[in-house]
C-alpha cells in the first residue's frame, strides 16, 4: 500500500473538506467506526481479484488516501452483493461506500482502473434511458464493440439466441419521457 502521500495529496480529489467526510456524507453511513476486523475482506467473493479488499479500501478512505481508493480496481469489482455488510460486526453498509467511491471517481475524473466495467454500467444506463428497461442483446453488443472484443462470447450469444433467451427487439415502456426526465436530473413535475 502506498503510504508516501503528503498531507496535501491525502486530501486529494479536489473535494472541499476532508475526503473521508465527503464519502461518509455521500454514502450516508459513517464507516469511520470500522476497526479493521477484516471480516468483509475474508468473506467477499471477489476479494481475490482485488488490490486492497473492502476493509483495505475503507482504511484508505479513513486515512485520507483518496487517490489510492478512487483509482483502485476494488471499487469496480464490488458487485454490491452485500455479503460484506452481512458479516460486518459494525453493520457498515459497505456496498453504499463503494457506490459513493465509484460516483466520486467518475466526477473527479481520476484514472478508472476498470474502464470495461464502467463502460458496461454506462451501456446499461443508456439502455434504460432509451427504453425504460434493459435490452440485453444491445447492451452486450455495444459493450463488446466498445471493448474491441467482438468474438470472445459469440458462442454464448448464439446459444442464448437459439434458446430464445435474448430478445432481438427491446421492450420499451409507454411513458418513456417519465424515465428520461430522471436522467436529465430534473425532479420537477412530470405531466
Amino acid at each position: 500500500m502506498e503510504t508516501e502521500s503528503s498531507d496535501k495529496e491525502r486530501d486529494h480529489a479536489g473535494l472541499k473538506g476532508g475526503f473521508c467526510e465527503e464519502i461518509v456524507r455521500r454514502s450516508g453511513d459513517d464507516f469511520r467506526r470500522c476497526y479493521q476486523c477484516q471480516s468483509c475482506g475474508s468473506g467477499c467473493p471477489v476479494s481475490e481479484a482485488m488490490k486492497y479488499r473492502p476493509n483495505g479500501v475503507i482504511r484508505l478512505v479513513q486515512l485520507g488516501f483518496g487517490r489510492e481508493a478512487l483509482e483502485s480496481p476494488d471499487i469496480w469489482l464490488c458487485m454490491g452483493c452485500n455479503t460484506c455488510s452481512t458479516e460486518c460486526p459494525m453493520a457498515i453498509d459497505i456496498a453504499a461506500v463503494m457506490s459513493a467511491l465509484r460516483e466520486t471517481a467518475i466526477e473527479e475524473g481520476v484514472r478508472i482502473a476498470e474502464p470495461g466495467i464502467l463502460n458496461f454500467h454506462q451501456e446499461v444506463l443508456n439502455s434504460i434511458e432509451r427504453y425504460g428497461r434493459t435490452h440485453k442483446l444491445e447492451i452486450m453488443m455495444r459493450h463488446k464493440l466498445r471493448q474491441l472484443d467482438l468474438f470472445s462470447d459469440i458462442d454464448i450469444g448464439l446459444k442464448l439466441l437459439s434458446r430464445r433467451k435474448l430478445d432481438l427487439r427491446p421492450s420499451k415502456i409507454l411513458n418513456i419521457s417519465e424515465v428520461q426526465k430522471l436522467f436529465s436530473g430534473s425532479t420537477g413535475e412530470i405531466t
Partner: protein
Amino acid sequence: MNKAAAVQISYFPGCSLATTAKENNQSLIEVCKYMGYRLAELKDWNCCGSSSAHGIKPELGFNLACRNLSLAPEGIPLLVACPSCILHLKQAQSRLKRDEAATKDYERCWGRPVDLNLKILHFFELMDGIDCLPNTTLNGLKFAPYYGCMLARPPELRHEKNYHGLMEKLLSCYGASSIRWSYSSRCCGTFLSAAKPEVAGPMVNRIVQNAVDSGAECIVTACAMCHLNIEIRCTLKRVVPIFHFSELLSIAFKTGTNKDWFARHLIDPAPLLKSKGLTV
C-alpha cells in the same frame, strides 16, 4: 394449500424475467395461479435501476425504483420476483419512510401521495407457511439449494425475515432431497459475468463443482440472474442442470401445462427429468 377465491396481487417481473428468464416468469405465474393468486402486472413498469444505476448513480437508481412504487395500486401487495429488484424497491421505500424531503420530491414528481405501507413481497414470502401435504411428486431428486446473495442484505434491511431453508423445506416436502454444500449463499458474480468474465467464470465453476462433489443431481436457484450466470459461464466438463425454484414447484404441484420452457435451458434438464420419472 390455499385454493380459495383468487387474491389479487400486483406483480413486478423485472427485466430478467421479462426476457432471458421467461421460463422463470411462466412457471412462477403458474405456481401463483395454482396457489390462488391472481397476478396483475404493474402497468408500464421500468427497470429497477439494476446494479448499474445503483452502482454508479445511486440517486438515479433511487428515482427509477420510486417510479415503480408510484405505479403500484394502493393497498394491493406488490409481488417482486427478482431478489435484486426487491432490494432496490425496498431500499427506496425505506428511504422514503425516513426522509421527509425525499417524500416531498416524490409526491411532486409523481403527482400522488406515497403509499408508505405498500407491502412489497418476494415470491418466497408467498410460499412461506403454505400448508404442505407430503407428497412424492419430485421422486427423490437430489438438489443443491442455491440462494446466492439474496439472503445478504444491506444493514437497513437486515432485520427483515430471512427465508433461508425455504427451498429445502418445500421441495423436500414434495419428495426431493436437498444435499448439504458450502456454496449455497455464495454470490454468482452478477454483472461481472458480462463485464469481467475472467473473474466471474472461476466463481461460477467453484459453485457448480462443489454442488457436483456434494452429490447434487441439479442446482435450484432463487434468482434468474444466478441461473443465467451459471448456465453461460460454467466451463466444467461435468455439470448438472440448473432449475429455477418456481420450475420445480410447478412440477411438484403438477400445475398442468406442457412446460415447454425447459427447452430454453442451456444445460438440458430433459435427461435428468426423464431418469427421475418426472415427465413434463
